[in-house]
């Protein structure tokens, strides 16, 4: 510590003063309650941060689930539509429409509708068999 011992000129020697200051360093100590207070505050703060992190993660997970659910719902809706066959009332209504359009009897229209339905079902079966 030559620079310290002789800060101004060679005549100044601060070694004694520096030693006295050094000895005074341990004169002040933290208050007794600082340790438990600090540890408690750290525990509370870290616990709060963990809680916030969990809430954010849960929120993100919910968001991802929600985003994935939209295409999944579409697929389910499409599959359900494909899986269900038209009711007899629906077929009769369509048969009447076909007969009116083509100028034939309703029996013939019904027969055509059944043909159409069978073809549709055969196609669907073929597709699911291929998958």
């Amino acid at each position: 510590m030559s620079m310290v011992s002789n800060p101004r000129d060679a005549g100044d020697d601060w070694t004694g003063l520096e030693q006295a200051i050094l000895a005074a360093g341990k004169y002040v100590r933290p208050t007794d309650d600082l340790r438990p207070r600090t540890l408690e505050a750290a525990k509370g703060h870290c616990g709060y941060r963990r809680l916030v992190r969990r809430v954010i993660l849960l929120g993100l997970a919910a968001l991802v689930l929600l985003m994935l659910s939209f295409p999944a719902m579409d697929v389910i809706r499409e599959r359900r539509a494909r899986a269900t066959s038209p009711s007899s009332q629906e077929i009769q209504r369509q048969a009447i429409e076909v007969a009116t359009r083509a100028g034939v009897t309703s029996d013939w229209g019904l027969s055509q509708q059944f043909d159409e339905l069978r073809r549709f079902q055969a196609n669907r079966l073929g597709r699911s068999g291929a998958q």
Partner: protein
Amino acid sequence: MSCPDLFSVRVRLCAERIAESREAALSGLYDLAAQRLVRFGTTITRNQHDAEDALQTVLVRVAAEPQLLLRADKPWPYLLRMVRNEALVILRRRKRWSLVDGLTDLLTAKSVDDGANEDTHRAIWTALRTLPTEQSEVVVLKIWESMTFAEIAELLELSPATAASRYRYAIEKLHVKLRAADVEVPS
């Protein structure tokens, strides 16, 4: 610093333990460094309670983010800087009228064997408090933390020459103040 600072190594070990077991390991860092950080903070805030508040805030932050210390090249100077910054924030927030005269805020360690030196210690602390903060913090870092002027300069973001001259002025003033207070300092 050419060789790794041993105290920094111990601080880093504490930070590693905190990273492993979170706030449960904070007591190790507290026991290691609290006294030194409080006395450093007290020289900045000139009030031990404010210094302790600064230390508490810093240690809570370290418990939440131990990587702050793990990432630092020199964890001990980094911790000192964290306390200094927090102490300066508190100092800015504090009203001027709340400045404490004397040493009434200090909790002092009294030893039976050291009774004879108590007056000297009190006089030194009182004299230190009369110095401008930028001078007293250099004295604290130089003498109590055994730092070189280069290390002090890095911590306080000064040039080493400025740190040295602040130290010189501070020591000269302390010498005069202690002599005026009739404190016998061995030469």
